């Protein structure tokens, strides 16, 4: 990057997920509703692994051309790694999103406890977690089990 040439072109409108820890972009991808993204023809998705970073030495970046993440998705992604920053780009101008750490997460994450009632077959129940931000943990409202923020992407479902 000595010549400061950009690896990919700037985005005119869309979402940039920046400062993802190096080689961890796949975990972020799993938190995106990828089927929804794929269903929209104009969207391009670019993943940059292990790019130079002034702040962190190395980082990953995800660029979503012509797609704005929902605020709910953005908040969930910011829980995964505290270094992540999200910019919404409009008319080539980036606006940094200030994440709103939710108190509860309902329906997005599967409980890691296999014996939790929320994992029972055919029961009409939706998973629900409290966010214990200071401990970087989610706690299942039903079975009390804990889930580390960093493991969120292993338990996401759409």
């Amino acid at each position, binding site marked *: 990057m000595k010549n400061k040439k950009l690896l990919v072109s700037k985005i005119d409108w869309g979402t940039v997920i920046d400062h993802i820890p190096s080689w961890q972009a796949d975990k972020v991808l799993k938190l995106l509703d990828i089927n929804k993204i794929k269903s929209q023809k104009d969207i391009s998705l670019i993943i940059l692994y292990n790019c130079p970073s002034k702040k962190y030495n190395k980082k990953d970046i995800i660029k979503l051309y012509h797609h704005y993440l929902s605020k709910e998705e953005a908040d969930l992604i910011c829980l995964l790694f505290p270094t992540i920053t999200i910019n919404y780009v409009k008319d080539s101008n980036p606006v940094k999103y200030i994440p709103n750490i939710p108190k509860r997460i309902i329906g997005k994450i599967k409980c890691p406890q296999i014996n*939790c009632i929320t994992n029972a077959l055919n029961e009409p129940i939706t998973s629900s977690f409290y966010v214990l931000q200071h401990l970087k943990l989610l706690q299942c409202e039903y079975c009390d089990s*804990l889930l580390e923020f960093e493991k969120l992407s292993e338990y996401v479902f759409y």
Partner: protein
Amino acid sequence: MKNPFKNRSIISAKDFSREELEFLFGVADDIKEDPSKYRNELKGKKVALVFLEPSTRTFSSFFTAAMNAGCDVISFQDSSVTSIAKGETLFDTLKMIEGYGIDCIVLRHYYMGSAKFADEIVDVPIINAGSGSQEHPTQAMLDLYTILKKKNKIDGLKIGFLGDLRFGRTCPSLSYILSNYNIEIFYVAPQNLQIRKEVEIYLDNKGIKYKKTSDIREVIKELDVLYVTRIQKERFPDLTEYEKVKSFYSVDLNLLSLAKKDLGVMHPLPRVDELSSEVDKTPYAWYFEQAKNGLYIREALLNLILDQNEK
């Protein structure tokens, strides 16, 4: 104090304050002193005992408690003979039972979180009689009652938990309920069976002092109460792990010779080989009285939840 249990579900031991528990214990004392005082007090009320996991003490004490109170009782004790075996959901089972005009449902279920879910499904009070390896709040109530009766206090006591603290449901519930008091807890278990992180977080938030160790001999001298639990075979996905730890600790007279003379040994029962029968006839043995207290506490709970007098 106004009855704080009327029409209330018993889901988690976290939900009850010291004052509320002592209100319950007052009624349990009354029943213990004069069982006839509350006999048939709940005549005309219907209680369903839905036990979809094996149980002896909890089922029989709830059954006897409900009968003593004059309730009509319907019960399922084995999921293999109910429609659950045909794939019926807990939701459908409970909706069906509620439709029979039941006033209270006592539920034991193998899924963690089942009691909370049940409470969301039906309008009648749910009593959690064991939700997988998560919690067993009425056991914690009777355990606390037993300690109070034997020691005349809870504050200042040092309480040890020994055995399977990870998969057992009684230790989390008793820990939660004890956190209403100024106590110190010692968790004694092999590392892979130590108390779950969520219990530690709860105790940290409540400012309760606790210590984790794997050596009972290191702490036995300090304890006022030793709560022994069975290593539960059915909680182990891998049976070789069970074989490795099942005799990890056993409580016998040799170990108790190191303890305070007035140490109380408790056990939610059934026991296998973790608690020697040679302890049974010593003053250390509190566990049969503990089991008996289950009846008074459960009868008191039913009377308070289904209270017909207080408007």
